[in-house]
């Protein structure tokens, strides 16, 4: 199994043009560095692995409890600032996956209360870490 590496995540989280206005005279603002901080917490800071041959995308090198935990927390966190709705999520999954029913079923439950506070974050965490998503 090959895993989505952090460079891909970074591209997908491309900041808005406003955020990208660097002036090269002062340090990037914290808002501009937000993605950097988040990816650092993900444990996979792009272009900064310990070794110069880059992050591996192979399962053997990747799979470990802490990295999975970081992905769970990461997904929950970005869901908060994505300002998207569940309907949007549904349409994205439907357009991209053959087995979209199976994926969406994981967050369709009778009692919405079990998702608790930040329900969308928890749902997004499930979707983003589904086996279909982790694999390339």
């Amino acid at each position, binding site marked *: *199994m090959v895993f989505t590496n952090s460079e891909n995540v970074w591209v997908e989280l491309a900041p808005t043009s406003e955020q990208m206005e660097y002036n090269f005279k002062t340090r990037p603002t914290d808002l501009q560095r937000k993605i950097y901080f988040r990816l650092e*917490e993900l*444990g*996979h800071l792009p272009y900064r692995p*310990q*070794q*110069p*041959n880059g992050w591996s995308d192979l*399962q*053997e*090198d*990747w*799979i*470990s*409890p*802490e*990295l*999975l*935990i*970081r992905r*769970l*927390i990461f*997904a*929950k*966190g970005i869901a908060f600032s994505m300002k998207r709705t569940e309907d949007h999520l549904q349409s994205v999954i439907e357009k991209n996956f053959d087995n979209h029913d199976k994926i969406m079923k*994981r*967050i369709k439950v009778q009692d919405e209360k*079990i*998702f*608790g506070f930040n329900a969308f*974050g*928890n749902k997004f*965490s*499930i979707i983003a*870490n*589904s*086996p*279909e998503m*982790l694999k390339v």
Partner: protein
Amino acid sequence: MNCTRRNFLIGGSASVFLTGINFSSKALGKDKKNLIIISLRGGMDGLTAIPVIGDKNLMKQRKKLIIEDTLKLNSDFALHPKLHTFHDLWQNNQAAFVHATSIPYTGRSHFDGQNLMESGGKVPYQEKTGWLGRGMMVANYVGEGLALALPMPLLLRGVPLNDNYYPAKGGLPSNIVIKSLSSAYKESGEMNLQMVMDIIQKRPLSMTTPGKGARNHRSLAKEAAKLLRVEEGPSVAVFDLDGFDTHAAQGNDDGLHADHLKEINDIVEELRENLGDSFNNTLILTLTEFGRTIRQNGGNGTEHGWGGAILMAGGLIKTPQVFTDWPGLKKGDLFEGRDLLSTIDARAIYNSAMAICFNVDPEKLRQEVFWGEDLQDLSEKLFKI
């Protein structure tokens, strides 16, 4: 998921691992022994940690780096004052040192060196597993590894189901997320992911809700000790320390290198306090890619060298000693005229340590972990059998 050969092999190997758990020597009722490795990235200076007493060559070449307030070990060697826990343990027959030792790598690159200190090989990036992981696989120590680091160090790869812990800043998502994903992985036949999820679910509360400062070395060591002292817990732990690469302002009694030595000391101190009686069945070893040059440079630091030292602690130490075949520090005795010569292959010590802790024949480990390379068996000389 489609049934391809690849998926079949993944599923098949997972079931092999599961049966393997039943046959680990721990399950057979032997006393649980812990092996703890502290990786020191950047190249620890053996001559700062364990200076030679009264060596004129050292005095002459390292005027600004001579340590004044040393703790005396024997007539030849002393200990850096920041390593005082090792000195306490030395007096209780629970610490020993190996000097003038290194892995066979004689280049000067951190990247290559760190890769080789973990893989145990001779060609950088050739091996995709670590010597510790391979050793654990030989001993059937499946699910026994714990890394206090992110990402999983190469050192532990080669054996499945290792745990790693380096607390995240946010809290885990709610339980429903864990449960839902766990069953999704099971459904899709992703056994490895599901087993990782199982490890996460079994974590004690103190690990899932870490407080402030949970990432400092003392807290990590405390958390590791809690798990290591339990019979069902892991028996192998790996710490990762960085910053030993002191090219400038290395310092002597205090300073950059001293600060990092203190981190090692802190870890050992916490482990000793929190392991309790298990400390008597524990072996702690340090691992670094190379030592540093004898001569100080213009910035009062040192460059990448070769020979260094291994610090050892724990109840499985045979006798307090500085185990060395000392090559001397005269110009002609140095490696390439600049570094302490390594007279003992460090891998021989790690091989012997694994043999003691895993209850495996050292010859078997030498063949299967280190490809039968010429490594002497030091278990009788260094460790309690």
